[in-house]
């Protein structure tokens, strides 16, 4: 068994994530034949409840949905509907968590089932807890759509569970394409052009109590999830590669070194990367960009240190690469102002 999930492995239970897409399309009177076209999914199999889809089929389903329902509110509608859904054992650990911090931890733990196409990574600094989003299995063009969907889903779920709504900040990579949707679904603390895809919540709010808190149920649900999903690798191919690069980054990294680490030949690695719509250089750049922004905004390292840690000869090379990754210079990246505390 591989340590990661590839795009044509059967991995996503059809009654979980794909179900919400099918349900929404149905509620909008979409022709089911058109929605399922090219996915290789048959309606009877879907209703059997035993169908497991390939990530590829999920992506085709999303392509079809976006063509049939082009409205810009679709990802948000999907997000609001996604959880608890029919996720059973994998949503229960989140559902029964006793406070926000535990709910987030359990969500990250169960993400292989809860968020099959996007990978969510948690990190903390003295003031905030961050959740970072990235592509999980392939470097898909639907990232933006899935990001809106996933952020809405997790906000909707956690706001519902918490007794007092946490004050989330949303840090988004590019400009906002339809502001109104963000305002209504995410509130006013949405920050565009941050070059990362993340949500953050002040650490002081992590102890917010949850409505459905039940310690025993949470423990049982967690064990049930671990038992049910222990046979599955937790990460998709792209997320796995990124994680390897991230852990290995203190040393120089090349495609050959990475292949050796993964115990496959460089040619195989290259082929696999291509199959998942990405290249070694893209992965390497994407991880370095993320770290550079992290270090600039949250740890405030000097350019010298950043250049050295990312294996650039000097600051000039770092600047040039940074410009290529983000379209802007590192000097224009500023830490975000902390949330205003409500009186």
């Amino acid at each position, binding site marked *: 068994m591989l340590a990661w999930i590839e795009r044509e492995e059967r991995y996503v239970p059809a009654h979980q994530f794909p179900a919400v897409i099918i349900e929404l399309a149905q509620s909008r009177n979409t022709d089911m034949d058109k929605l399922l076209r090219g996915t290789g999914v048959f309606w009877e199999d879907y209703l059997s409840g035993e169908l497991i889809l390939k990530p590829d089929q999920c992506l085709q389903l999303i392509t079809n949905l976006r063509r049939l329902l082009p*409205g810009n509110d679709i990802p948000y509608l999907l997000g*609001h509907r996604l959880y608890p859904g029919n996720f059973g054992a994998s949503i229960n650990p989140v559902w029964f968590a006793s406070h926000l911090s535990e709910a987030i931890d359990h969500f990250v733990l169960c993400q292989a089932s809860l968020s099959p196409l996007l990978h969510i990574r948690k990190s903390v600094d003295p003031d905030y807890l961050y959740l970072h989003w990235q592509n999980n299995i392939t470097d898909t063009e639907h990232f933006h759509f899935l990001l809106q969907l996933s952020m809405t889903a997790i906000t909707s779920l956690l706001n519902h569970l918490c007794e007092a709504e946490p004050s989330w900040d949303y840090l988004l990579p590019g400009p906002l394409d339809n*502001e*109104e949707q963000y305002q209504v679904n995410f509130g006013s603390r949405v920050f565009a052009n941050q070059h990362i895809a993340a949500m953050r919540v002040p650490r002081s709010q992590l102890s917010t109590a949850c409505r459905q808190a039940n310690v025993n149920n949470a423990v049982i649900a967690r064990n049930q999830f671990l038992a049910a999903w222990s046979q599955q690798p937790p990460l998709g191919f792209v997320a796995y590669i990124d994680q390897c690069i991230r852990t290995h980054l203190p040393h120089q990294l090349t495609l050959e070194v990475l292949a050796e680490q993964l115990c496959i030949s460089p040619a195989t690695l290259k082929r696999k990367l291509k199959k998942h719509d990405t290249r070694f250089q893209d992965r390497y750049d994407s991880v370095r960009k993320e770290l550079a922004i992290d270090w600039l905004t949250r740890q405030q390292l000097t350019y010298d240190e950043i250049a050295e840690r990312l294996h650039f000869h000097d600051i000039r090379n770092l600047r040039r690469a940074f410009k290529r990754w983000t379209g802007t210079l590192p000097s224009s990246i500023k830490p975000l102002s902390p949330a205003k505390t409500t009186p």
Partner: protein
Amino acid sequence: MIKLHKWKLLFIAIATNFTILLTLALGDPKLWGDIDWFDIVGEGGVSLLAAMWLVFILNSRPAGSVTNFLCLGLGFIFIGTFQDLLDEIIALPDESFFRGALESLLMPFGLIVLTFGLYHWHKEQLVFLEQRRRREQETREYRWQDQLTDLGDARFLKLQLSQQIRQCRANHQPLALILLDLDRFNSTNRTFGHSEGDRLLRELSELLILNLRRCDLLCRYAGDRFAIVLPNTPELMANELAQQLIRAVASFAYKTNNGDTVYHNASVGVAADNPDREESITEIATVRLMAAKDQKKLGSAA
């Protein structure tokens, strides 16, 4: 839609067939060399376009007298041009009545019937325009229409708002904008399901429309937030109208499919157009709406 009109199409097809037979009976096919291909392309194109118009119109209209006139008019035009096309392939004797006469009879007749149909279409449109006035005022953009509520979406709002602001400023009239948002709409969705939430939004948009003046415009901003453009309205009056809307929403007893009754409260943000302020009118209204929501949250927490 086109299935509704199968008899009309059949009639036109039979009439076309009849013309072909008649022309063949009276004339002889031309020799290959005698055919003027330039004319064929020209007249064939006209005939094809007439047929396309016919299909588009039939496919977008319910049955009724206006449709019958449009169909009849276009049908005559199509047969007329088609006969003209046949004329290029089949040589008719010069003295024949069909040489040119059919076309010069059918075309004007078809055009007159079509004009008559268009006039009634216009009358019909005026009736619908009045019904849709508070949804679209003087602009229609089908691409910018919300699929769920049949209102204009945020892009439509932006367009209308900039037009109306320009107009009101030119006439030295005030203009106001109300943003209205349901409280706890998400929990309704969670309790009763999203299809109930969707239906609630549809019915709510009807309710809001009933409470507006003829000159007001209702748009769906996003999600459960609606925007109302009030031309020639000072802020005080806009506040009063907003309060009326809040009262209307509060007494709206929505019935779910199971027969449960659900009540909702709404929050509003009202802003007046002010050329001196840097923020747009939408931004001001949004800030006021959020403040009203926070106020409510604090009130319920205390």
